[in-house]
Every structure is written in structure tokens, then in C-alpha cells.
């Protein structure tokens, strides 16, 4: 069943059209990747789904409910959380406080023990966060900060996670670690929509993917099939540019 369904989304940034009728869906339990060049509109799609940018046209349906244009906090309550690009963690606060912040909408209504059992779970996925729980978040390495950002989003108990460029700015080995974590997150039952400029890594981890070009989707397929698509290889995987006759 489709958990997220996006229909013909059109979004403007000022006078500039960033999305030109984008439709996509994510089934429950899937990892779906959005790949495409810089400026193709990948992040805009996430921001529009999350209610950070209002669409001028189109529809977003989450879990059977139309949520087009709903503010981000309402969506978090419905089970849709975003991990923004650049992590945006709170540097002066401790790792633990950052994590608890992810559950802010639950802290009033739920018992503390619930939160702490979730915390246990997060620590089991990211043991490093437990080690560093008392440390100020600003002192973490890039990879650890990314794990914290994902962990914080998981504290809202999302049914679906939107990840924006989780590997950006990370060393290849660290990025690899992050992708492993994302696979784990899905294995624990969270559906994932992933925006990734590193198309190879994105396609390697995803079940299905969409290729975006200037605000439009030009291909949808199983990620493994897109990996062998020549157009995708040339444009995003850096293969085949030495063949010149056309």
C-alpha cells in the first residue's frame, strides 16, 4: 500500500518554478530515492511534502489523508518526519537533549518511560550516541551529527522518514556508515524517502527511485534497473562519457 502519494506537485520559489507537476509514491516499508543534479528540485520536493514550502498546485496524501500544505509539526504528529540537509542540530545542547527534543510533541502527553524506551532503541541503532550522550552536540564529528539528526527524527516515532542529502559533506567511509544506518532504520519498520546527490549510493540502498531533471520526473524504475540505465549512468554515475559518437 502506498504510504505517501504525491500528485502533480507544482511549486514556485518566488517567480521561479521549481517543480513542474511531480508525481511519486512510496509504499509502506520501501526505501525510495530521488536522484538528480543540483537544482533539479529534489529538496524542494521534500520541503513541499513537509509543508515548509506551499505548493501552487497538486496533492500530497499521507496514509490515506490529504495533507497538502499542512505545517511540518502537524505532519510530525501524523508520523512524517524530515531530516533536513545540514543536520541542523543544536550545538550547545547535549546529545541527549537533542534526542529528547525530537519527541517534544510527545513529552506532554506521554509517560517518560515511553520516551526512555525509545531512547534505548535509538542507542541500540547508534551506540555512538549513547557514548556521547552527555557531550555537547557541537563537538560531534560530521558523521555522528548526521546520526544524531536521524536519531532525533526517529524519536518522534515516525512511520516515514524523509532524508535530505544524508551523505553530504561526509568522508566516503562515514557516508557508507550512514547508508547502513538508513537500511537498518527501514528494517525496523520505518519507510524512507531519500534525496541523494550521490546517485550511486542512493540507488544502491533504494528499492525504487525517481530521476528528476529541472523540476520534472523523467524516469521511475527499480533502483537496480536505473543503475544500468545508460542515460542515468552518463548523467549521474559518471560512466561512459568517453564514448563520443551519437
Amino acid at each position, binding site marked *: *500500500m*502506498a504510504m505517501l*502519494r504525491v*500528485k*502533480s506537485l*507544482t511549486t514556485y520559489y518566488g517567480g521561479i518554478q521549481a517543480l*513542474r*507537476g*511531480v*508525481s*511519486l*509514491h512510496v509504499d509502506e516499508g520501501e526505501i525510495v530515492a530521488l536522484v538528480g543534479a543540483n537544482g533539479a528540485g529534489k529538496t524542494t520536493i521534500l520541503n513541499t511534502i513537509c509543508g515548509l514550502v506551499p505548493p501552487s*498546485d*497538486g496533492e500530497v496524501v499521507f496514509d490515506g489523508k490529504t495533507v497538502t500544505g499542512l505545517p511540518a509539526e502537524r505532519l510530525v504528529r501524523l508520523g512524517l518526519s524530515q531530516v533536513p540537509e545540514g543536520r541542523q542540530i543544536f550545538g550547545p545542547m547535549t546529545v541527549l537533549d537533542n534526542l529528547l527534543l525530537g519527541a517534544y510533541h510527545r513529552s506532554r502527553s506521554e509517560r517518560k518511560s515511553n520516551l526512555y524506551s525509545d531512547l534505548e532503541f535509538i542507542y541500540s541503532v547508534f551506540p555512538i550516541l549513547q557514548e556521547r550522550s552527555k557531550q555537547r552536540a557541537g563537538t560531534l564529528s560530521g558523521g555522528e551529527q548526521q546520526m544524531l539528526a536521524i536519531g532525533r527524527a526517529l524519536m518522534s516515532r515516525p512511520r516515514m522518514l524523509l532524508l535530505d542529502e544524508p551523505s553530504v559533506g561526509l568522508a566516503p567511509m562515514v557516508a557508507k556508515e550512514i547508508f547502513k544506518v538508513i537500511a537498518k532504520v527501514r528494517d525496523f519498520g520505518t519507510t524512507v524517502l531519500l534525496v541523494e546527490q550521490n546517485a550511486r549510493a542512493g540507488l544502491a540502498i533504494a528499492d525504487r527511485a*525517481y530521476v528528476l*531533471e529541472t523540476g*520534472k*520526473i*523523467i*524516469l*521511475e*524504475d527499480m533502483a537496480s*534497473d536505473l543503475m*544500468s*540505465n*545508460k*542515460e542515468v549512468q552518463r548523467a549521474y554515475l559518471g560512466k561512459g562519457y568517453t*564514448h563520443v*559518437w*551519437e
Partner: protein
Amino acid sequence: MAIWNQRYETMAREELQQVQLERLQATVNRAYENVAFYKRLFDQLGIVPEDIKSLEDLAKLPFTTRQDLLDGYPYDMFAVPLRDVVRIQSTSGTATAPTVCGYTANDLHSWSELAARTLVSCGIDKDDVVQVYFGYGLFGAGFGFQYGAERIGASIIPVSVASPERQIAVMRDFKITAIIGTPSYALSVAELLESAGVNPRALSLRVGLFGGEPWSDNVRSQVEAKLGITAMDYYGLNELVSPGVSCECEAKQGLHIAEDHFIAEVIDPKTAKLVDAGCEGELVLTTLSKEALPLIRYRTCDLTSIDTSPCVCGRTLARMARVHSRTDDMVIVQGISLFPSQIQAILTEIEGTEPHYRMVINRVGASDSLEIQVEVSDRIFVDTVGKLEQFEKKISARIQSALGISPRVRLVEPKTLEQVTGRRRSVVIDNREL
């Protein structure tokens, strides 16, 4: 019976429509960006790809016709550079008006998936030993079934074109359980079995998939009775995929269309308007997954109707009625598609003037024969029988080399063919009971 792709073949209609919309938009985006023909057509009509906001908006888009494909011969309709194309198939007529279809590696991948669905839907599985009568040439059905059978793990024996005697020997020795070919060829195999005194029920035959020419339920019962098999129908087009567009299931109540790969519409062939749901008209297909040759609203010239009611087999895919007739004057003889215009072009080339001619198609037993009657004119007037025969042979040989079918050519007295002109399709007399 089994379903090959549970996910897509039994998808809820609402979900299917989402998949169709996504793939339609992506297809239109690619066609507009990469195919000059579509860019020009859209620009003329003032349409941009983002005008397609819902499946209903498909009706805003222009049609693609066989003529458009002919005009783009051979590569102009391709949406990818030639180096991405790993296979090219074409219709049989290579000299006159062939339509060309290219496939990327992914297209071949989808084709085998679709062929696998066709085979499984018709009751073939990994334990079957499949014999293919179709040729493995420019006409692609043999390849399609090959891929599909390999995908599902069946054993396939690409006997292809061989004498019926050889086919029968293979059928017996290899313990063939499933046969694939044209229904008329199956009938001629049945006849040969009969005359050789072989009881088909003593063989291992179980099921047959037939296509490549129209065939009635009457022919179906003949094939089933004579060979002791279940005879199933499938549908495809060389310009898209064949097999793979649609296929029967065990219910035999129409052919399930692979709607996650094609959107089917039915139009009135005269007005080009959509007909009411369930009514008969011309089938129009839009490809949703094709990379090399995306086609938008392709007019198939095949007459059918579409039924979206649930099917007992569990598939949610809509069904199209079996195709028995066409909107144009194409005829299929011995599995080869022919247009009178192709015959006319050859005769004109030989005679130097517009010929008066007629195509007569007969079925003797199970095999089709084509006779071409040509009126003798002053220009080709010859006085000896020998020269006449030579002339007939020359025409026949020319048609054979251009179209791959060997007709009997008969020269007739001037004015004898005139009385039939003026009626549509009058140049074709089809005496077969299809």
C-alpha cells in the same frame, strides 16, 4: 492458476492509477525532450508536458499513427541515442513501409517481464517444455517468448521455422508440453499428425499460445479438439512489444492489459473521440515504461472494447476483448501483415502505371494462400503464354523478396476487376473463415 507479478497484476485500481500517472508524466517529459516529432507536435498544439496533471489529461494529447512511425523511419522516433539501443526489431516488410522498434537494455528487461506474465497467465510454468514455431528474425515474437520462458524457468526449444514433420518430431521426442505460434500453423500441424496417424493425446501437449493473426472461437475449438490442448490468446504489437501487451487468463473472458506498462483507451475510429466505457472502438495505447521508443496515444487500428470489471482470476488489470478486425485494410496472411498499398507499390514499380489488382485470400485446410489478380493492360500486353507466366513469376518473386510472402499471381483480362471498385476494401477478398 498462478500470477507472475502479484504486486502489479493484482494492484488496487487507485494505486495502479497513481503508478500510471507517474509513468505517464515521465514518459511525456522524455518524449518531449528527446523526440523532435513530439516536441514539434506539442508546440504546434500549445501543450507543455506539465499540462498532464491527471490521467484524464491524456485526452489532451495528440495521437501517434503508423504513418508517423513510417515518416520517422528508421530512427527518428527514438528517444535515446542509438548507442543506448541494444536491439532493433522491425515488421516483416523490410522493403516497403516497415515500422521499426528499438529497445534499450531496460526495455528488453521489461519485455521479458511482460512475456513472463503472458506465459504464466496462460498456464505455463517452470516445468513446461515450450516449443516456439515463430521465426527468430526481425519480427520479434520468438525472442519475446524466449525471454519470458527463460525468466520463468521453463525449458524453451527455439525450433522456429521448420517443416511440420520436423516440428512433430521435436514435439514427440522432446516431450513438448506447450506450443507457441500462429493458430493456422497449429492447425496444419494437427492435420499432419492426423494423416501420419499420430494421436496428439499420446504426446505430452497441454497448452498452446496463439497469435500473430486474428482467430475466432471457432478456430480455437478446432485447435483444442484436434490437438487436445487448451488454446490461449495473447496480444502485442511489433511497435510496442509482442508478446506482452495483453493476454488471456484461465477465465478466457478477455485479455488482461499490462496497465502498469501501457494505458489503453478506446476511440471511435472516425471521430477520434473516446467511446463510452465498454463500447467497441479502436484501441489506442500509450507506453509507460519504454525508453527507446515511447509512443503517446498510438492508434493500433485494432478494434476491441475494454472491460474493467473484476475477473475471477484475481487480476485487477482491465481486459480487452479479443481482436477480430481492424480499422484499416491490413490483412494478415501466413502470419505476415500486408497492406494493399504495399502490393500496389510493387505493381506500380513493375508496370509503371497504376495497376488494377485484387488480393484474394483463401484457406485450404489450415493453410492460407494469397492470390494476386492483376489486370493486363496495354503496357504489359504480351502475346505468348510463356511470357505471361514469366511475368507472373517476376511479380511473385518481387513480392516475395519485399514482403516475405510468396503469392500466386494471375493475370486477368482487362476490365474484369472493375466491378468491385468503389467499395471499401474491395481490393481484398478474404475468403477465410477466421
